[in-house]
């Protein structure tokens, strides 16, 4: 191997190492500088450019929503445990298990309704344009996954939903 090739390859390796090192340090610095793990609502402030007054209102709404959300989560978790117990006892979906599944669906619907009402209230505490953006983003995150699942089911041949 001649000297020039060694020089060029060595330079390339050194350049890659310098770039990778700088990238890594820059990334760590970016994470440390931008992250605010102490505040769960920091994303709202930065993403939707909220001022202190708007943040105070959003925080108030958030604090009042959390206990409601926790209560619904407890109800859903308890109902799921009941369903698991009902299904564990046999190989059929009994009337009791079916009833509990219906109740679970109702809890989920209630929880989603409560969640959407909270998102709407939060969006109204923001400037109009940011509020619209927030609502669209939250609807996409919270309801979008259902749409994806339903879409994937209807994409399967012979498994069309809602078609005659």
């Amino acid at each position, binding site marked *: 191997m*001649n*000297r*020039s*090739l060694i*020089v*060029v390859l060595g*330079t390339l390796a050194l*350049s890659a190492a*310098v*770039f*990778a*090192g*700088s*990238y*890594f*340090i*820059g*990334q*760590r*610095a*970016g*994470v*440390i*500088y*931008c*992250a*605010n*793990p102490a505040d*769960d*609502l*920091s*994303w*709202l402030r*930065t*993403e939707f450019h909220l001022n202190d007054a708007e943040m105070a209102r959003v925080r108030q709404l*958030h604090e009042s*929503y*959390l206990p409601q*959300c926790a209560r*619904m*989560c407890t109800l*859903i*978790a308890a109902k*799921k445990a009941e369903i698991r117990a009902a299904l564990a006892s046999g190989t059929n979906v009994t009337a009791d298990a079916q009833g509990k599944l219906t109740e679970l669906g109702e809890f*989920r619907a209630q*929880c*989603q309704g409560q*969640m959407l009402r*909270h*998102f709407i209230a939060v969006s109204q505490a923001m400037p109009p344009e940011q509020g619209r953006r927030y609502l669209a983003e*939250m609807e996409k*995150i*919270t309801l979008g*996954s*259902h749409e994806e699942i339903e879409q994937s089911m209807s994409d399967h041949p012979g498994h069309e939903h809602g078609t005659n």
Partner: protein
Amino acid sequence: MNSDDTKLGALLRESRVSPALPPRFQENVWRRIEANAVPAKSDSWLDALAALVLRPRFAYATIIALVMAGALLGAHQGAQLAKQDAQARYVALVAPNALR
């Protein structure tokens, strides 16, 4: 050679004036040498590339460019990661996984 000639010779040597060098003489000499230096003929593109990367000015410029590009790109990526993490924390609080 008699003693008078010897004295005369010594006197002449002592009286020889060695003129002072002009200011920045040495620097100017090197500058002219560098300006007239003929670059070595490269045998191939690889030799030419090797000669290029070994030039200090090129090497420093490349290192500075790589460090700046890496740091800026990394910082941008880090900011995006921090944003995604903050968003995930918020969504996990207000929208339980059971519903998503």
